[in-house]
């Protein structure tokens, strides 16, 4: 596969959220504000790229029986960097994201890409795969949070764009709307795939 194919494959064709239904815990939890989604998405891209690179780098020296533990520890180390960085530079957002930064560790996308790609491919290819998968994930977060923030607060990235006449839908800020929106997104994309196949 060429580098471009690896990227497109990771970001869209095998997109973790809508194709494999992985890593949706945080996809649902942080998406009531676009800024939070963007920051978490960047955190995931950072962790995914470097973790994929590291895991791929040591893939030939990792004993198969303990590879899951090693992968988890590598991922956790990068998540700690993200967490410390956020606490130091964006304390407000770090507080809002709460445990969800730490939960990047158990985000199935990271283990998924490590198992499916990084443990069998070259370091540089794995990095591209990581960037692709991370961007695909961030895209989903941004789409869902766009709808939730627009209807729930009448704003985008904290800027109010709907006028004073807009009455915010409080349901959009609460949990159920996240489930419904993700279901609708998956429905739309699956229907598109079935149409394209037929």
């Amino acid at each position: 596969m060429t580098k471009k194919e690896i990227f497109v494959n990771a970001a869209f064709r095998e997109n973790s959220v809508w194709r494999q239904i992985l890593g949706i815990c945080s996809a649902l939890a942080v998406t009531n504000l676009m800024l939070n989604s963007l920051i978490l998405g960047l955190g995931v891209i950072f962790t995914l790229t470097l973790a994929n690179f590291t895991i791929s780098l040591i893939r030939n020296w990792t004993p198969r029986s303990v590879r899951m533990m090693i992968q988890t520890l590598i991922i956790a180390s990068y998540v700690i960097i993200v967490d410390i960085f956020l606490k130091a530079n964006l304390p407000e957002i770090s507080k809002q994201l709460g445990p969800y930064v730490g939960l990047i560790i158990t985000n199935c996308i990271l283990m998924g890409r490590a198992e499916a790609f990084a443990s069998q491919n070259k370091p540089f290819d794995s990095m591209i795969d990581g960037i692709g998968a991370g961007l695909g994930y961030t895209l989903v977060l941004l789409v869902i949070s766009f709808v939730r923030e627009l209807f729930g607060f009448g704003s985008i990235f904290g800027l109010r764009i709907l006028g004073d006449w807009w009455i915010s839908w409080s349901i959009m800020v609460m949990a159920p709307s996240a489930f419904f929106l993700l279901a609708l997104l998956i429905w739309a994309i699956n229907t598109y795939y079935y149409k394209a196949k037929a």
Partner: protein
Amino acid sequence: MDISAFVLFWAAIFTSNILLTNFLGMCSYLSVSREIDSAMGLGLAVIFVLTITSALNWVVYHYLLVPFGIVYLQYIIFIVVIAAFVQFLELLIERYAPALYYSLGIFLPLITVNCAILGVSLFMVIRSYSFIQSVAFGAGSGIGWLLAILMLAGLRRKLKEKLIPIGLRGAGISLIITGIMALGFIGFSGIVQVQ
């Protein structure tokens, strides 16, 4: 935090259900909810592991991480404690209760990567719970998770013969059902406030 452990226990089941309001443990929730039996097995394992690891992690955090000033390592330490405990449990069950191992054993590795387990430990630190509160919160969260996965498994069994739009089958319809359940659970939200 001066909420009594008893209140916290009920709050963790109903008003701030770990899955329906905090979205934790979604991956295994969606993939293991096809059969009621396996949902029950995984749910029971989650309750057990969640209760014990929240206690273990509380002790580790307050007697190891804080005195030595290595709180920033909490993610690594917590995940190692959880993985080690699950591994230990697996060995123990395999040795002493082979029958239980065959019905529960396959779920144990899944639990390490269940974000509800790590999530509860992190919530416990962020909200600075006491030891008793942490255990109550862990047990309540586990029961809440079992409740949610059992409800979904039951509903999915009913849906098997129903006509569902092709793009919505599987994950899509499960998410919509979960959304409706979450709407129902909002009804509990006025009772107690935990944050």
